[in-house]
């Protein structure tokens, strides 16, 4: 845990201010989230997108494929089996990408702290930008989490994707520890591409 | 009365065609090969009689010129008789040949029934 390097401002990130301001504004207001309900919290997403809470007001829209998505929601506990799919989808997403973890299960395993097949601490395997607590947060909580993420993007703090790229070996090693048959399921060692 | 007269005049022709008809009946109906062969011979004989009777003129003798009394005027036409000679020879040859074939057929097919001997058909 200790040799985790602080995310330094990678060269991609520095760009001339004027243009940066507009892209920041655009990235903030149009978040396309990968329609991939990993855990029990996915049920909360439907009320947030339908008429009462309607996240499309905030410019958020679901997207079918990781290629078009910016945001990956880990809703609730994450079993090791789903971790394989999550890693693949996360690595297939294009670069300024963010991850939100729902509920306590992503923080410390939650009520499944001692179960053999769930991930105790999500942060070891993929970088998480925002945590939303609540054993499955209500739509209001989800919206507030999303708003918080938008502010983080606004002032350039949501840099999980840079941390992942710079400490890639570390993450990969953790993943290999938990996923015994890594190459057995022919998961590529290097970054997905 | 006239047709009786014609029959009398051409009695030989009627006889010859009668023989031919009988021969044809045998060939058409009988299934036994030997009987068919006999039918063919009957037809041959009928034709030969018809040929000979062609040259016959009523009341004239055979054209043998050795004795003086015979002149070409009062003798019948000898040429059909010459034709009949060859026809008879041919008839004999064909009958002999077909008999030998029939014997061989019998040895091979063990039957003389013509409707049984049809290995090659369609």
């Amino acid at each position: 845990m200790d040799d985790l390097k602080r995310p330094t401002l990678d060269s991609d990130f520095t760009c001339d201010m004027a243009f940066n301001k507009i892209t920041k504004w655009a990235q903030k207001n149009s978040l396309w989230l990968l329609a991939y309900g990993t855990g029990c919290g996915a049920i909360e997403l439907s009320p947030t997108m339908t008429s009462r809470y309607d996240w499309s007001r905030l410019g958020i829209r679901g997207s079918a494929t990781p290629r078009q998505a910016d945001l990956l929601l880990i809703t609730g506990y994450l079993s090791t089996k789903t971790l394989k799919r999550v890693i693949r989808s996360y690595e297939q997403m294009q670069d300024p990408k963010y991850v939100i973890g729902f509920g306590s299960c992503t923080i410390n395993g939650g009520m499944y702290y001692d179960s053999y097949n769930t991930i105790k601490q999500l942060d070891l395997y993929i970088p998480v930008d925002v945590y939303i607590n609540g054993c499955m947060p209500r739509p209001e909580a989800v919206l507030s989490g999303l708003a918080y993420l938008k502010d983080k993007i606004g002032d350039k703090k949501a840099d999980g994707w840079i941390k992942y790229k710079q400490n890639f070996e570390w993450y990969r090693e953790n993943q290999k520890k938990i996923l015994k048959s890594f190459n057995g399921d022919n998961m590529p060692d290097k970054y997905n591409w | 009365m006239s047709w009786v007269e014609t029959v009398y005049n051409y009695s030989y022709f009627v006889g010859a065609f009668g023989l031919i008809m009988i021969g044809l009946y045998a060939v058409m109906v009988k299934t036994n090969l030997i009987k068919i062969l006999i039918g063919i011979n009957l037809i041959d004989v009928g034709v030969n009689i018809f040929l000979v009777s062609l040259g016959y003129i009523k009341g004239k003798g055979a054209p043998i010129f050795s004795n003086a009394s015979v002149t070409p005027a009062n003798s019948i036409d000898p040429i059909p008789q010459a034709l009949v000679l060859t026809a008879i020879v041919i008839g004999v040859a064909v009958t002999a040949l077909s008999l030998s074939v029939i014997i061989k057929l019998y040895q091979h097919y063990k039957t003389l029934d013509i409707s049984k001997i049809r290995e090659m058909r369609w």
Partner: protein
Amino acid sequence: MVDYAILLIALPLFAAFLIPLVAMVNKNWPKYIPILVTAFNSVLSINLLLYLNAHNGTPFIVKIGGFIPPFGINLFIGYLAIILLMLISFVGLMISLYTINTVKDAESRYYMLFILLLMGVTGLVITGDLFNMFVFLEITSISAYSLTAYKRDGLSLEASMKYILIGSLASVFVLIGIGVIYYSTHTLNIADISNHINTVPKYIKMFSLSMLLIGLAIEAELFPVNGWVPDVYQASPTPVTTIFSSIVVKATIYVFFRVLFTVFRADLTVMNFVMGLGVITLLIGEISALKQVNIKRMLAYSSIGQVGLIVIAISSYSSMGVAGGIYQMINHAIFKGILFLGTAYMITSVSGTGKISDLKGIAQKMPISSFIVSFSIIALLGVPPLTGFWAKMMILSSVMSSGHQIIVALILFATVVEAVYYLKFIAVIYDSSEITNSFKSTIKFNKIVPIVLFALTIILFSVVPQFLVKFQDVLLKAANELTNVSSYISIVLGS
């Protein structure tokens, strides 16, 4: 004068009866006598051709025994007779070459009958006397009966029996016909008969015509009466079948039309009847050949079809049509020669039972003969540059000009049917899967040489256009001889 023409008949006769003596001296000498005889005949006929050209193409007659024509037997030799003579002797030479070691235990009797058959056919072609024609017909038939039965196995005996049964009926009809004609015109010389034929009362003339027509139709393999043809062709040894289909049929068709045109001065009603017969023979022959399994039987049916075509051509009664018919006769003789000899050679080498399926993929082992066989098939179908096409063009244009458009359509339809089963045959030969039964490749030169020579004649006829055009007016002269009755009479009775 050209009295040596009688040698054409005399020498084969003499050689035929010499063979038993020669056999006593040395057992395997008789094999070479047919070759000598046919070679002599072809030289003689070429000589006659030169003589004829020297006399600018007018036919001549040969008086036998010095009797002036209406009384004695005379031979009538013109372009048509010479074409048929050369055909007989050339194809006869090829077949006798082929038979040297085909019929294994061939006693001398086989060669004697072989020469008798050839002599009978030669006589048929050149005789000018009606009864003499009957005698030659009988000689051919009797030697044909015995040659068919030569193999002495079940099939050949059965075929020979059927042939004898129908053949004797045929001779009966011919004999009655000749008798009635003699009774009404008191003469047997063809030219003399046709001179007096108008005096004969209509019923008797018609009766004798129908009698002769039926008798000769049996010999000329026209439809209702050619039941014996497929069996005889299938069962008799191959050289004999080739003689039947290439030579004997041509001579009998010639006799059939000589009797109709010259003796009875046939008018249009007779010709239409004969054309109808020809069309039916063509259709039945081609259609029933479609489903045959045995090669020789298939070729037999195809020969019946071709006979039908020749009969249609000649009975179209225009000079182009008759010339086309004669040209088709020559073509058909050559093509059937190749086909029969070629396929027999293949079957013997595969020692198969004569089924088409036995020859599957034979082209890989016997490329030359299978190439020549397929070349002759393509020529037979009438693919343009080759001879079959020109003959068919002549026939079709004459039949069309005589107004029978439907018959032209039927002929074309029959050719398509012919193309179907012949190309299926080629497909079997060139099948790429390897041969099923055992194959011993015995290159026998005496088998390949005749086929190659036949193939060369096809190429000769098709590729050399000058030769074709000069050849065309020879054909037209021959056609004229057949149809022009008055010139026939003037030549025979005039001198």
